[in-house]
């Protein structure tokens, strides 16, 4: 028997299946978000099951998470992505005490206690300037792909200062910097620094390592270094960062079914 986690995020829907003992991922899949996300989620779930050679009746429980979680009709229950990311990261990095999740539309900092429970969290979801959206904007403006950003930022010796709190106005600043002849690597590094500084504002003074970086933006190289520079601590990228939410949801599905205290 298996347990499933469905993370209906703002950019992509992810599904993870874990086995009876919860120790490993049996199957996983991802699809871009769209308008009919209920149908997208169901289709992805069926597809992942099929690829794993499993049937629906073999899934004991499904937990949905992410902003779109309430629109997943097949979920037995919903749990916020804050809790799910924390559980997922802790499964992959058992010593983690701080989790940073930067997604397409929001960013979170979650503090865990030594038992892995969420102790405290902070979020930035009112303005996209601290999120992956900002990186998309700069990539688009500079004619780069997201995967180009890291190597480009690594060439910078002097990140540009981006002052706007809003990504719309920050885009204007990027245009201004380009017009002023500022090197592209400095602009990219500046954007990464700006995102990292928002994490610092959420983190406050007491950031406890080990710090694990997860979410879609963790896959963009260079961001972890910007975070390290801003936080003053080493930052490790979670294995399979885009899947930690769905993994956490699946693990919580198992715990929930077993009536364990989560």
């Amino acid at each position, binding site marked *: 028997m298996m347990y499933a986690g469905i993370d209906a995020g703002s950019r992509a829907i992810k599904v993870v299946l874990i086995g009876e003992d919860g120790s490993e991922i049996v199957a996983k899949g991802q699809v871009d978000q769209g308008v009919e996300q209920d149908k997208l989620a169901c289709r992805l779930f069926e597809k992942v099951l099929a690829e794993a050679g499993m049937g629906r009746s073999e899934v004991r429980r499904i937990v949905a998470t992410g902003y779109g979680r309430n629109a997943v009709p097949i979920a037995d229950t919903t749990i916020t992505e804050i809790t799910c990311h924390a559980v997922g990261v802790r499964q992959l990095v058992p010593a983690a005490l701080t989790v940073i999740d930067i997604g397409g539309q929001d960013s979170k900092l979650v503090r865990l206690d030594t038992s892995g429970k969420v102790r405290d969290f902070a979020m930035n979801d009112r303005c996209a300037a601290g999120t992956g959206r900002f990186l998309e904007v700069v990539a688009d403006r500079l004619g780069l792909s997201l995967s180009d950003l890291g190597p480009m930022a690594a060439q910078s010796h002097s990140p540009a200062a981006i*002052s706007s*709190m809003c990504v719309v106005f920050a885009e204007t600043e990027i245009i201004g910097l380009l017009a002023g002849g500022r090197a592209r690597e400095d602009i990219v590094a500046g954007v990464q620094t700006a995102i990292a*500084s*928002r994490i610092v504002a959420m983190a406050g003074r007491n950031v406890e390592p080990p710090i694990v970086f997860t979410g879609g933006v963790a896959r963009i190289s260079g961001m972890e270094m910007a975070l390290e520079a801003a936080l003053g601590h080493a930052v490790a990228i979670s294995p399979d960062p885009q899947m930690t939410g769905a993994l956490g949801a699946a693990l919580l599905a198992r715990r929930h079914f077993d009536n364990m205290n989560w």
Partner: protein
Amino acid sequence: MSEAPRQITLQEWDDRYERLRARGIPQPVYGGPLGRHVEDGDTRLLKLRFDNSPAALRLWNFLLTEEDRLQAARDAGKKLVGTMKDLGTVPVMAYSLDNLVAFYPDGAWWIPCVMEVNSGLLQIADSLGIDESFCPVRAMLGAFVTGAHFPIPDLLTCSVGATCDDFSAIAQRLNGLGHPILWWEIPHRRSPEEDEEAVQLPGGFSAPRGQVEFVESELERVRIALQDLAGQALDEEALARGIAQANRVRRLLAQLRDVVFTATPCPMPALEMLIAEMLAIHFCSDQEETIVVLQELLDEVKLRVAAGRGYSSAQAARVFWVNPVADLQVMNLLEDCGGRICGTEYLFAHALDPIPLNVPPMEALAQMALADPMVGSAIDRAARIVAEMRRFGAEAVIVSRIPGASHCALEGEIISEIVREECGLPVLEIEVPPLTDAVQPTLRTRLEALVETVVNRRSR
């Protein structure tokens, strides 16, 4: 004045400095090439343009060596007083005693600009929960945490009440970090009611006698604290001396402003005038030297005016500037775009007015504190701006918003409305963050458009 006035880069200044030095030009103990400050981390200087007079060089060196003076004062056994928010009153009291040095921790707001954010001060403020939705003066928090920009003062005073929210919040956060603060109340200045005795304040406002007495009682608490810190009596005689000295500075500044703002072509650039005016607040930690610096500047501009020389075109748009800028480079930009400074209101206009001598010193200081335009309504502030605009013949107004400063959200709107009603002149509101490199094209477009508007209006 030996050379034609012009604005030069840092590199040009360092070359010029060598030539001046070779000619044996006298310089103060804190003198030297400007380039050395870049080595200390003040990299913004590489992007600024400076007036080419030795007087301006002295001014810049004076400003950029304040940290050294504060440390020297501490080493010499003097007590340091950090006077927060209050722009120009408590320092007058402190400098009345010879073993006190007052400085303005809020001045740290320029550090992120001057060091081009490399100081890390804003990040420290972020980590304390004071993010960029607050005024850049939040850099002050970082400066207190690192202790790397000024010695931690022996006494901190802070005016509260009719003051801006963001500074008040930042000061409270500082207090929460374990820095004791002597809070003193400045009430919202209002006009006297019919049954109240009116007191005419310096600068043209009036207030009820009751408010003056209240502020005097608050300053009395500050006086006692200063006295206890110094271990010397801060009596009427000492205060009278302090006021006389402060008035010397104010007289010099008033003359400097009158000469510069009314002359054509403009004999001193906007950036140097901004720095010079800031000296009125706390004398850059050396009151005597402030007088020398300002006198030299005044002598220079008088020579230039007598020779009919200035750095700007005679056709430059005459701009009245409201609020100080977080990025010094914007003052250069004004001139690049064809404007020239013709009047200012940098949040401390009251610190430029002479302190009254016809009343006892403490009452005089209370009147001064209440005369602060920021302590009353924006309508009052606008009235003073209109009066000064007319006096100096301004053709346009720029209201420079400070990002995150609580007073800027609405004040600009009120000032703009009143200026347009009273003078019919164009008003431009711009926002100036600590580093404007990224928004230069945006700012340039706005400033150039304002200048074009002014020039077109002339031909009507």
